[in-house]
């Protein structure tokens, strides 16, 4: 194992590295991200590629380091997104539940403060989110939704780029001590 790989792997107890947030932060930040997604593209259409609720889900799941918490966070954000969409409730909920679970599971094994890992995980979970949502729409709703893989990769990169400063800002909201 390389030194970089050793640095990514953590051997400290997970509970000691679990981050805590105020309940207001856990409520307002996801709501703010959803609000951003439904409000800002009306004026800046080019920002519609940003999937801030997904990035927030990934961040809180990574920081909480608890798959159960990650699952609930993902399910909550996904259901609110579903409520504001034209799809039946549960589509974004299931996808983000899985994202939250897997992100929290990854955080148990890796140092999620690492920027490269954050970048990679943001990119990976964006692609996973889009792909799984597409599969669900086709499988469960039988809708012929198109999927542009190249565009998904590009948007994944862009979201990963945005995720780095976003995660840095959200790090400031962690409770210390």
């Amino acid at each position, binding site marked *: 194992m390389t030194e970089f790989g050793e640095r990514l792997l953590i051997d400290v107890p997970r509970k000691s590295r679990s981050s805590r947030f105020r309940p207001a932060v856990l409520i307002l930040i996801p709501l703010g991200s959803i609000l951003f997604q439904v409000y800002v593209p009306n004026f800046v259409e080019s920002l519609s590629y940003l999937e801030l609720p997904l990035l927030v889900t990934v961040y809180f799941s990574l920081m909480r380091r608890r798959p159960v918490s990650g699952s609930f966070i993902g399910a909550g954000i996904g259901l609110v997104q579903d409520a*504001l969409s034209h799809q039946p409730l549960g589509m974004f909920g299931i996808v983000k539940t899985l994202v939250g679970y897997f992100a929290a599971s990854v955080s148990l094994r890796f140092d999620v403060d690492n920027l490269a890992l954050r970048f990679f995980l943001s990119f990976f979970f964006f692609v996973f989110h889009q792909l799984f949502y597409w599969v669900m729409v086709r499988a469960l709703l039988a809708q012929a939704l198109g999927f542009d893989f190249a565009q998904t990769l590009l948007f994944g990169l862009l979201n990963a780029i945005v995720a780095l400063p976003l995660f840095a800002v959200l790090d400031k909201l962690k409770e210390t001590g």
Partner: protein
Amino acid sequence: MEILLSRFRNLTVLLILVVAQLVLLAYQVKTADDLPLIRVWAVTALTPVASALEAVRETTVGFFRDYFLLKQAQEENRRLKAEIGQLKLSNHYLKAELETIERTQSLAEFRSRTPSKTLPARVIMSGTGTDSKVVFLDRGSGSGVKKGMAVITPDGIVGRVINSYPTASQVLLVTDPSFAAGVVSQKGRVRGTLKGGPGRNTCIVDHVQNEEKVEVGEWFYTSGDDRVFPKGLPAGQVRSVREGKTLKEIVVAPSGLQSSLEEVLIVLEGVHQAIPQAPAPSEGEIYLLPPPPPEGGESDGSGQPGENGSPLRTDADELLQRYQRIGEAQGHVYGKHGTRPPEFNVRPPAQTAPVPPQGSGPQTAAPPRTGSNLSAPPGTPATDGRTGTSTQPAPVRRPAPPLTPSPAERKPEASPRPR
């Protein structure tokens, strides 16, 4: 079971969550029904925030939009001010050019009208000194300008050439105290000497006795006595008249210097002209009827020898002529016995009046009056002689010079009864 759940707690929770949402989905798909409660919660939670955000955004955007509009308006205002300044400059320049053109045209028109031979010149500089009453013209002896020549404008006299150089000439203005020119008033033909006055742009008329009558507003014209200025050029208008010990103190505004002096005419060969007649006193418009039409077709009723040289005639002469024409028309010979008497009620044939000699009358400055104005019967609108348009009864200024109607206008309007 408990061990299994505690060991796979995370997976169990995930499965529960996913299955629950799958059931939710299945219910919605199966029943084609929605769960409005969750959507209402989400919308209710988010729309107030969105409304507040929209208000903040609108205010902020409005503020910055107004700010940038203000900046833009300020910039535009600055640009427009600069543009207005440029346009004002351009306007001043064009106005000056226009005035120059008008002056030049006026000068050229006056030059073509005046019988004197003149030379246009431009004032190029003035004499030294703060109260200089000397200017230099751009024409000199090379152009035929000689010392002593008069300098005029269409408005009046300007001065006299006191020095002539090859390329320029020096002119003493009428406002200089050493200047002198013979002038005569327009109304009373009062003669005097125009000199420079005490003021900056005034002259005085000297050597006018207190007994002479000069009115304020009256015009003085050059008399030609000084052998410099041709007779008949306007010199100035009387501004004030006071009686002195023996001579009047008459202040005159020189008409040639009322506007800025830029272009002038140098009189190379002066020709005397008549002094125009004074206009009739303008003490209100007085309405006068046109003269009555002549009675009968043969006589103008004056009984005086007219301009055509006809002898004096009486009514009896006219009656005799009339009867003779009636007799000739009906082939009757007066005094011949046995012939039928003529019908005296018929209209005699018109007599051809002698044509008066044209252009023999004296020329006056009185406005021309047309014969149509004179011969029109009372109550008939007078006719403008120039345009031929019918106007209201023309007010005639008194005294109006009696003009003789033309022969064609002397035709009787009705057949006269024999008297």
